[in-house]
């Protein structure tokens, strides 16, 4: 881990912890543990999700919205049974390539190593459907429809009051949430 990555990693962990404590109970963490999965699966998925969408200066990462539990619950409830096998395959592929590449489990890698493992996996040709697409789709959905993602990473306006058709976009302006 170089110095920059180390700093980022520290910021991530500290930031996530602070946010975790301040989060309201309306997160997936408050829901029942998803049937058929163990804590290790959920922890690994949360780390993967948090690598896809990490904490940055202005908003927390996907780990702060209990993304692992969201992905597992959504997979159980909203997808055909085959999606569970696809997701399992993804978790074991990612664990295997972490070991192969760095001799460690994904959770023991630093942020840069995690990003490398996932970037390589995303572009790797594996049996269809590609498990990473499933993980990414649900990470994106779960994060941007969570309170932290919608209100801090995007702009959330539940009652806009009007539609304005021509608004000058500032350089830092983010997209609208749902």
């Amino acid at each position, binding site marked *: 881990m170089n110095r920059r990555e180390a700093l980022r990693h520290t910021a991530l962990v500290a930031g996530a912890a602070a946010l975790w404590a301040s989060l309201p109970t309306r997160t997936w963490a408050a829901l029942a543990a998803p049937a058929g999965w163990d804590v290790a699966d959920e922890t690994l998925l949360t780390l993967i999700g948090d690598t896809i969408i990490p904490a*940055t200066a202005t908003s927390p990462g996907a780990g702060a919205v209990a993304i692992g539990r969201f992905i597992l619950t959504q997979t159980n409830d*909203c997808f055909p049974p085959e999606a569970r096998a696809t997701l399992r395959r993804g978790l074991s592929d990612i664990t295997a390539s972490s070991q192969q590449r760095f001799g460690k489990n994904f959770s023991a890698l630093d942020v840069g190593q995690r990003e490398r493992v996932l970037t390589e996996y995303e572009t790797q040709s594996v049996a269809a459907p590609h498990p990473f697409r499933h993980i990414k789709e649900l990470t*994106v959905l779960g994060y941007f429809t969570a309170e932290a993602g919608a209100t801090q990473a995007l702009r959330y306006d539940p009652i806009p009051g009007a539609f304005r058709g021509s608004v000058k976009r500032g350089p830092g302006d983010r997209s609208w949430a749902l």
Partner: protein
Amino acid sequence: MANHPTTAGAREHTFDAIVIGSGISGGWAAKELCESGLRTLVLERGRDVKHRDDYPTALKNPWDLPHRGKLPRDIVTANPIAKKCYAFDEATAHFFVKDAEHPYEQEKPYDWIRGYQVGGKSLIWARQTQRWSRFDFEGPARDGFGEWPITYDELAPWYSHVERFAGISGNYDGLETLPDGEFLPAWEMNDVEKHAQAKIMGAFADRHVIQGRCAHLTAPKPQHLAQGRGKCQARNLCYRGCPFGAYFSSNSATLPAAAATGNLTLRPHSVVESILYDDATGRASGVRVIDAVTKQSTEFFARIVFVNAACLNTNLILLNSRSARFPAGLGNDHGLLGHHIAFHNYRGSLWGSIEGFEDSYYSGRRPTQLMMPNFRNVRKQETDFQRGYMVFFGAGRAGWQSGASTPGVGAAFKDRITRPGPWGISMMMQGETVPRKENHVRLSTAQKDAWGIPQLVTSIGYHDNDERLLKDFLARGQEMLEAVGAKKIVTRDSKQNPGLDIHEMGGVRMGRDPKASLLNRWNQLHACSNVFVTDGACMTSTGTQNPSLTFMALTARAAQHAVAELKKGHL
């Protein structure tokens, strides 16, 4: 006669008027009849839905929904038909009929989307409201497949009547193909839409791009505020029910107005089995109702009956209203009841990317799109297909949803997918279909529903004309998107089944000739004059417009006629 009850029990079951159905047209019938002083019974087969109180998801944030709007798989697999509807999701599913609740037989594939509750589909409609033009009323006779017994000019004051009350936003565009109405201010276009409008109208003299017209209070007038309704907040969560009453529904507008007269009796859980025919008077005497919960049968009596059960259920009730005089269904002396069902052809859509406009964005969520009134075969037949289509447009910037297919991970990925993405422009069609005798519904001889009523058989399909019209739309759409400067243009035929448009019309069509139609120019059954049909079932053709506004205007007009005839002693 039943209209002069002599016992308390009979009085409780006797009204001046009965309205079957509480959706968009039934709500109007109830309002107009109650306001004219008639004691009116509204029968609704579903549960009660009170404005505001019964919109449980209306104010929920995305994170308040257990699956963030996606439906759990057990609901999806149990509802192969309802799930196809774009508006059926975790926040709205309670307003849609589940497939198992009311099965039907599909002789040809047909997706029947229904809302059984007080307010019906007026809670979950798309709220787009355009008047028909004279070309739409005159077209069927010109093209030789039908004849409207009324003209645009006759309906125009009734359009005004319903528009003022409902609140319709739009621009005064001055187009003969899409007449102006009584408008509240129109919604704005975004910068790419303005660009598209200029390019298309510059390149094609006969094609007009206008802002959509919809039943949303953009600037409520005193009479809307008096209804307890407020300004549209541009949330675009309409299918959950609007807590502001900003879009028009029976629940927010017509039923409260009817109730305010003291003349309304609203009876939910009342499945109408049939309309009762009295041989002695030659008229309907009332209706037979089966309680949706207890399955007990009851009868109610009135001097007039308005049938507003929504197109196919209106057909079903009339077909099931069999008597010695009408063995094939009420008013059905010629076997045409249930035939000439038509719908809108929604199969075609296009998409293209737009470069530039990087600094331009928008705020709020607009509940309408741009429209292009029909420009095909307007004044004369000029293509290889009959009739035409309206086009809907919209432009917008890609949002976070594109993150699922954007490569990469980490902070740079996150930054990229939280910024407004490139612009895209989309187009879809709303094509007229020609009512054909073979497109029909009838009663099942084998299957009954949970209330002992025969199930409906649907035999409704596309025709070659629909394929040619679709092909033309995709070609014209492509040339228009090219004129706009769109790149990577994609054309699509969804091949969706009839029915998914949720614009089913006909089966009890209006017409001058009693031998070729079921209803006269006042929506009365030719053969049973105190029965009025004013929902989609009455339509002689479909036009290219969203139909609900026309159902409303026809209903108000027919109700006024019914009241006048009652006063004259003719009914």
